[in-house]
């Protein structure tokens, strides 16, 4: 009896203590939210983009067919799809869509819009860029039996297909807009997302206001928001400290985190995660002398990734050494295997001696070139400084050229570069997603190294169709070996994500990808 009494009192105390907290967690409607975006997108269309700058700009205006449930990542849930079924042979995906959804211009949303969007993604018209073209190559047809049903029929079973449908890059556009201009979404905004577009002031901000017709009842919570472009990290941190912005969702460096914690104390929320993002060393394989595998391989072998990882992790967001799949994820190459691949040796002296030998054989002992990089302080600048230092150690002279995202992407796409620091911006650990970047250039606009390699394409296909995990891992490792032996492009280091926000910002969910969960629908302010 005494125990029961104590138990009841304890339960009462706990419930009393929990009550205000539960009340505090009740979302509040209204308010204006300012957040920082540390790069400005050169255009608005996520289909043709790989930079988070486009997603942080555009996501609040759009919906996707499926999406990740960030509370249970990597579980997938519906967005415009109310439900879906997959046939036993995994060749037919049938989606039932939400009814009564409207685009911001008032046009009703139907299955025709899904068809137009996915036709654009898998088979873009002349002059339209779709970076997701290769991931939807297995779609044989898209049928729309009625306005709320869409059926995707595949030519081959694809174990990554649901992940592709949940990609945040596949923003759904109006068929009417695409019919009027296939490039409509590059410069104009008309989605079904929780916020409607208000303005984009170049060099300053993007603004949105609540979409009162949003199909998810009760959402969004905020009245309006403004994404402020803060290209300088110091400016962003000062704005965060001063309350001009309440969050930055991409990530900051360890030094910035420490500084902000010291300055803001318990007003600041710090969330950390490993990151599905890496920087790559990229060679333009069409430009001499980088059309010579010996030169490319020598440059990769000169990089001390293991030493660099230890040093750079103290001053930047770069941390883990890994191959083409995120280190630590189920299909990643184990370290014992990784160190056998070119560019990952722990005996850096021997690797550099070999690198010098290769350069001599190629007649490139006094190699000079320009290294293209983005002018984002974190972690592009530290990576550039590191690479210049590493290559100087084998007698190579490098000019480090940093530019804005727009000219940088234009140079990469047009092949107007020699060597570059590229990025692989993933949103999950599915190997198909990360390997797509390495497919032949003729099949894949994401391949900026501009090579065609039938063996890589074959291994990609084998891993894509393989259902046995061990066999799939073997195919992935074979692809990785081929890629690194040919030294077309190679991950430099993987990132570590640190997100800072004011504690008044509620409802936003941390994930291993800064591309996910940026529609702001569930964000609210506890003020």
């Amino acid at each position, binding site marked *: 009896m005494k125990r029961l009494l104590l138990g009841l009192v304890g339960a009462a105390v706990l419930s009393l203590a929990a009550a205000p907290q539960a009340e505090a967690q009740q979302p509040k409607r209204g308010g204006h939210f300012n957040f920082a975006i540390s790069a400005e997108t050169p255009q608005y269309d996520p289909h043709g983009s790989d930079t988070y700058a486009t997603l942080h700009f555009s996501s609040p205006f759009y919906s996707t067919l499926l999406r990740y449930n960030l509370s249970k990542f990597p579980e997938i849930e519906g967005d415009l799809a109310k439900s879906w079924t997959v046939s036993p042979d995994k060749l037919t995906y049938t989606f039932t869509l939400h009814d009564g959804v409207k685009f911001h211009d008032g046009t009703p949303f139907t299955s025709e819009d899904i068809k137009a969007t996915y036709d654009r993604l898998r088979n873009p018209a002349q002059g339209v860029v779709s970076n997701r073209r290769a991931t939807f190559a297995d779609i044989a047809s898209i049928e729309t039996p009625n306005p709320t049903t869409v059926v995707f029929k595949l030519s081959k079973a694809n174990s990554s297909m649901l992940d592709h449908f949940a990609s945040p890059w596949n923003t759904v556009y109006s068929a009417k807009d695409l019919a009027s201009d296939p490039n409509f979404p590059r410069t104009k905004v008309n989605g079904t997302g929780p916020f409607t577009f208000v303005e984009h002031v170049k060099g300053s901000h993007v603004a949105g206001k609540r979409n009162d017709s949003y199909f998810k009842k009760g959402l969004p919570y905020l009245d309006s928001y403004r994404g402020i472009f803060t290209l300088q990290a110091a400016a962003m941190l000062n704005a965060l400290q001063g309350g001009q912005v309440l969050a930055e969702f991409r990530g900051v*460096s360890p030094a910035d985190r420490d500084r902000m914690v010291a300055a803001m104390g318990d007003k600041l929320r710090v969330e950390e995660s490993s990151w599905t993002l890496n920087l790559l060393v990229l060679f333009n394989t069409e430009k001499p002398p980088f059309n010579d595998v010996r030169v490319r391989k020598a440059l990769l072998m000169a990089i001390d990734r293991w030493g660099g990882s230890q040093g750079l992790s103290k001053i930047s967001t770069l941390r883990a050494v890994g191959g083409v799949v995120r280190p630590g994820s189920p299909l990643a190459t184990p370290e014992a295997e990784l160190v056998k691949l070119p560019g990952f040796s722990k005996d850096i002296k021997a690797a550099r001696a070999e690198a010098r030998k290769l350069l001599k054989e190629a007649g490139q002992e006094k190699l000079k070139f320009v290294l293209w990089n983005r002018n984002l302080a974190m972690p592009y600048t530290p990576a550039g400084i590191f690479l210049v230092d590493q290559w100087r150690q084998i007698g190579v002279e490098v000019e480090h050229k940093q530019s804005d995202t727009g000219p940088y992407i234009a140079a990469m796409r047009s092949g107007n570069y020699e060597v570059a620091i590229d990025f692989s911006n993933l949103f999950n650990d599915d190997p198909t997603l990360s390997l797509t970047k390495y497919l032949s250039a003729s099949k894949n606009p994401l391949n900026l190294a501009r090579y065609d390699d039938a063996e890589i394409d074959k291994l990609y296909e084998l891993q894509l169709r393989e259902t046995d995990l061990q066999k799939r891992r073997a195919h992935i490792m074979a692809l990785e070996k081929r890629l690194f032996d040919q030294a077309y492009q190679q991950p430099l280091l993987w990132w570590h994500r640190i997100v800072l926000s004011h504690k008044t910002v509620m409802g936003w969910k941390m994930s291993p990808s800064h591309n996910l969960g940026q529609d702001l629908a569930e964000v609210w302010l506890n003020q």
Partner: protein
Amino acid sequence: MANAPQVISANSFVLPKRPNPVLSFVRQQPMGAVSFIVIAIMMFAGLFPQLVAPYDPLSINFSSILAAPSWDHWLGTDAFGRDILSRIIYGSRTALVIGFASSLMGSTIGAVLGIASAYFGGRVDNWIQRFVDILLAFPIIVLALVVVAALRKTVVYGVDVNLVIAIAIPIVPRVARVVRAAALSVNVMPYIDAARAAGYSDMRIIFRHMAPNVVAPFLIMFTAFIAQAILLEASLSFLGLGVTEPTAAWGLMLSGNAADFFREAPWMIIFPGVAISLAVFAFNLFGDSLRDYLDPRFKT
């Protein structure tokens, strides 16, 4: 006898000994001499940094990240473990090359415009001066920012030519205005009238007769603007529009990781800041001293 004219022998007339100009400058302008020594040291460091710098300025050493000043690293190290003293020494080359080149380019173009404006007068003078007015309406840093953003980067022999042009352009109107004022007083001299009467060409009169007489203000402006150019280069690099990492440059040393770690490692910003201040102070002081020494109006 007492009224007899005094005969002075030609042999007894002794011309006063002309003082050594360097010694005279040192005696009259001791602060100028000191600033010249500072400039000379900087120039030596900039010309032969490999003889002076204890470390490679670009060499990363992750085992000594953010090391405080010590016997191994007199001015400490930065976030990449690079020796700050060595980067300051190599940075003096960047500062001086861009400072000298920009100031020379801006001052020369400004001087030519100023003399032409004074010599031709009338409509030419009016057009040049309105152009100068337009350029003067922009603050130096804003004008340089616009030019550097518009021109992008073009590296020739390790020097960003467009950065030099961007820094030179704001110097042009300032020198043109001062040189025009000096040239106007030269333009009314009889020897210019004589040259015109003799039928000399305009170019000959400008370059042979007028230009040598405005050398003093030109030199003064040139040295003073070296300091301005160094400061401007540092500002543009700080703003990410000048030279890029990992080049050793003073302004650049104040940005990037220095901003991230200035609390833990204040030496990352203090010493490059001191180097910039010292260089600017030395060039300004030397320019002032040169003006006081060369311009007869300042002689007492």
